[in-house]
């Protein structure tokens, strides 16, 4: 058992964890943040994506100990009170979720895609960047539309690529 400090959604917290504890299990079981989902548990589906020190990671494939001293951002931390994050609002308004299981991972990934492409985005780039996230309802068209919509709300230029909507 080791003691680690993490800053989760802006709040510093201390945890005692065994070496083999995965970040996703710490978030769900110890921090009570069950918005981060476990989908495949084999590092393929992206339902568990969170940001660690500003980079998206699959939290089912990183040890809590590897994050010691780090800054974690999860789906619970992105809205401002009752005001949805622009990506959440765009997902809602574009019907970008069906069963919703993959959505936390997609929303965190989408925020990172938009923030790391301030020069502009198009549908093709968004599709390539979404390679690590799987939606089993296969609602990708609306997810891509929502991300481009959110990008515009966040002041990122969106270029048309002639792709079907």
């Amino acid at each position, binding site marked *: 058992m*080791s003691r680690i400090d993490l800053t989760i959604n802006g709040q510093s917290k201390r945890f005692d964890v*065994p*070496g*083999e504890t*995965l970040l996703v299990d710490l978030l769900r079981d110890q921090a009570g943040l069950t918005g981060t989902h476990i989908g495949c*548990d*084999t*590092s*393929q589906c*992206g339902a568990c*994506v969170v940001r660690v020190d500003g*980079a*998206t*990671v*699959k939290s089912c*494939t*990183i*040890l809590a*100990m*590897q994050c*010691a001293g780090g800054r974690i951002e999860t789906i619970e931390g992105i809205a401002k009170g009752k005001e949805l994050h622009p990506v959440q609002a765009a997902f809602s308004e574009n019907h970008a979720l069906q069963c919703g299981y993959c959505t936390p991972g997609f929303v965190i*990934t989408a925020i*990172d895609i938009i923030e790391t492409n301030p020069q502009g985005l198009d549908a093709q780039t968004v599709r390539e*960047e979404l*390679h*690590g*996230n799987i939606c089993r309802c296969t609602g990708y068209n609306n997810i891509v539309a929502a991300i481009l919509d959110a990008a515009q709300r966040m002041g990122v230029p969106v270029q048309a690529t002639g792709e079907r909507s």
Partner: protein
Amino acid sequence: MNPFHYHRPKTLAEAQMLFRDAESPRFIAGGMTVLPSMKARLLDAENLIDLSKIEALQGIEARSGRLRIGASTTHATIANSAVVRQMLPALATLAGGIADRHVRNRGTLGGSLANNDPAADYPAAALALDAQIVTSERTIAAADFFTGLFETALTEAEIITAVDFSLPDRAAYTKHRHPASGYAIVGVFAARFGQHWQLTLTGSSAYGAIRLMAFEKQLVKGATPDGLDGVDIDDLPILEDPSFPIAYRRHLIKLMAKQAVAMTIDDVSI
């Protein structure tokens, strides 16, 4: 996963000492292979020694006409590095095409080489670019480093610290990705040094990354991508796999090689 102790040493010496003293030790870098394998009970360890905070394994620098990249540099860092993009853009492209964005944020150059997965991308680049694999003990030429599927010349407790790439006049990497995993079904790295090419194959060879000597010889005779059409590659040791049959892989190898070579010749398009 089975229980284990986790260690995060700050120096190479500390990491090696931990490894030598611990029961059932294993190194972990980004963990993109180690952790899924441990979760699937394909690998086990009682002591996991994390190399990611060792400063000596970090950094990217150009020196003496070569490019040296620290072993714990992530794929994302290599893909986005201004130095790599300027000096060896094909390597940045290769790194940016590994797996997916989340894996690229964690997986490392040294980890990929040490694992020597036959479908990994970096071994093809290391072989084609005459990379020197710098370790805690010595320097190993890439040609001597890869010794078989998931096998390398690394000894117990030996740690890759950096990879030193030679700089070709032009280089390109073309890859047919597995649609789910992103691993190479066929990946060809082409490096041109003057009028001489070094071409390597990953993803399809039964022995891990290999040189494509028949193509290299043909390119000495005539530097055109179409010249590769007539080259006999029937004796290449290609993996037998019902999903991607040998004839299909052979076709892709020629296609990927022609595209990669075309990208290393000025003013040639296909």
